[in-house]
């Protein structure tokens, strides 16, 4: 399997990224703060507004290194997209599928099956891991509802209907997510998802890691030659990485939500690191963001067995594996797109 390499997170807002030979060099006021060989890197994420040199952008796109710019608050600003990789025929088939309700529904269904199954797995895990602390009966009940939802999803006949079923399942799941917070309850409560802006600490963490995940998935799609902007479930909108958002649905609960929950439950995150603005919006401070990034990086290294390939891979490779399986389905190697089903 392709190797999982490092991601370089540049969190100081006043630094500039440049290229020197085969290295990325981080500068502040002409002074070199750090240099790192590009061949060790899979992606670079920079927080702040200063920027990077065109030479570095070219070097990254040539080497398939995703270069992403975020605002200091972790909002996505831009990605460097180089020459398009892979084959035009793969992408044309992708576009054809995206415009065909029946064909795109088939892929979208499997993605949503993955999403609902995995959110259910998060609940099931909690009943096994903390039987003394969680309301098993309540979680089991929701889990049962989600399992039934999968049967309905399998039978559904339109994307409209599919979106309805997905929304209902997501509400059920988010409805009990607060039950999985077992530490620091005073500072971390979840009463539903909100994002523009996030109004509580958990939502601000979720928004941040969803952005990180979305851009991991987008660069995985580019690596295998798919167009991250043309989706099967999310409708096209200029600048929106619809296919990345589609593919990410399977991973939100098992990858991002679990990550946030475990940081809170293991007290790896300090509630003091969140500031509330006058209107209630929550902003994470720099150190908290760094702490999240560090934990995110080590979560990526954890090894799991991929359920479809039956092969050991790092968590960080899962977006790539799913992108590759999707490309292989589009090329006609597989009978259906196999979603990532985590037990």
């Amino acid at each position, binding site marked *: 399997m392709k190797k999982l390499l490092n991601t370089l997170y540049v969190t100081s807002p006043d630094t500039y990224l440049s290229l020197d030979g085969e290295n990325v060099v981080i500068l502040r006021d002409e002074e070199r703060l750090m240099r790192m060989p590009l061949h060790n890197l899979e992606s670079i994420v920079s927080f702040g507004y200063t920027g990077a040199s065109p030479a570095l952008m070219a070097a990254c796109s040539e080497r398939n290194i995703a270069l992403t710019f975020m605002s200091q608050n972790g909002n996505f600003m831009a990605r460097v997209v180089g020459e398009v990789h892979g*084959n035009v025929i793969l992408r044309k088939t992708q576009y054809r599928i995206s415009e065909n309700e029946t064909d795109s529904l088939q892929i979208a269904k499997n993605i949503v099956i993955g999403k609902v199954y995995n959110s259910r797995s998060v609940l099931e895990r909690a009943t096994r891991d903390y039987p003394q602390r969680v309301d098993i009966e309540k979680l089991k009940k929701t889990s049962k509802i989600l399992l039934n939802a999968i049967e309905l999803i399998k039978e559904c006949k339109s994307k409209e209907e599919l979106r309805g079923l997905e929304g209902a399942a997501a509400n059920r799941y988010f409805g009990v997510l607060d039950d999985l917070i077992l530490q620091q309850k005073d500072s971390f409560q979840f009463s539903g998802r909100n994002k523009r802006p996030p109004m509580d600490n958990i939502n601000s963490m979720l928004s941040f890691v969803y952005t990180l995940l979305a851009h991991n998935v987008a660069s995985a799609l580019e690596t295998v030659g798919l167009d991250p902007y043309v989706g099967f479930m999310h409708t096209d909108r200029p600048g929106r990485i619809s296919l990345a958002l589609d593919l990410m649905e399977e991973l939100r609960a098992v990858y991002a939500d679990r990550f946030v929950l475990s940081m809170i439950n293991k007290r790896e995150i300090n509630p003091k690191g969140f500031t509330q603005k006058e209107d209630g919006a929550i902003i994470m401070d720099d150190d908290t963001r760094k702490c999240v990034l560090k934990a995110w990086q080590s979560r990526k290294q954890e090894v799991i067995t991929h359920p479809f390939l039956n092969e050991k891979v790092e968590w960080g490779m899962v977006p790539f594996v799913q992108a590759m399986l999707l490309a292989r389905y589009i090329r006609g190697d*597989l009978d259906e797109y196999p979603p990532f*089903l985590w037990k």
Partner: protein
Amino acid sequence: MEYNEEEYLMLSGIQHFAFCRRQWALIHIEQQWQENVRTVEGNILHESAHKDDFNEKRGKVIISRGMPVYSRILGINGVCDVVEFHENKNGVSIHGREGTYLPIPVEYKHGKPKEDDMDALQLCAQAMCIEEMMLCHIDVGYLYYGETRHRQKIEFNEELRNKVVRLFQEMHELYHKQYTPKVKPSKACKACSLTDLCVPKLYKTLTVKEYIDGIIKEE
């Protein structure tokens, strides 16, 4: 039948195709490519073989590096690492040179001689291009291996030539259909630079339907 230029396939693709037709299709039809250590080292070796752009004469031999060749009959084009032109009275004339010469292609390979005929097929295809372009006949060529630093003589017999013709015909058919064939996974997959994208495992696993139903029914 003759092919026109738009239909030409890459000559060097024959070695991929002989190794694994799926690998060839991934590279040449799907244009998926991943650099790995071997391909990078290969590029470096070829760069040095092509370095001096054109001719050099050593005694009775003209050495031409990086010579572009094509064949309308096979529908291919490519570049020869080195073609030696040996002065010989049974040879053919060359533009701008006195005397007659016999062309002998030499292909540089990283690594050591292989048990299969992939490299010989590529060399033979080069010879067939030169024959068509220069109206001559070529009996032998050489494969030079970087690891052993030795030349291996290859005879272009009927069997080898027929195989070249047959393989390129198949490649044209697949290319026309834009079809990536499925191939049984084998030991060769371990040495392949494209396993991540090819995923030979796909053919050993269940259908996706069985996979999804299997996991969900367990509950």
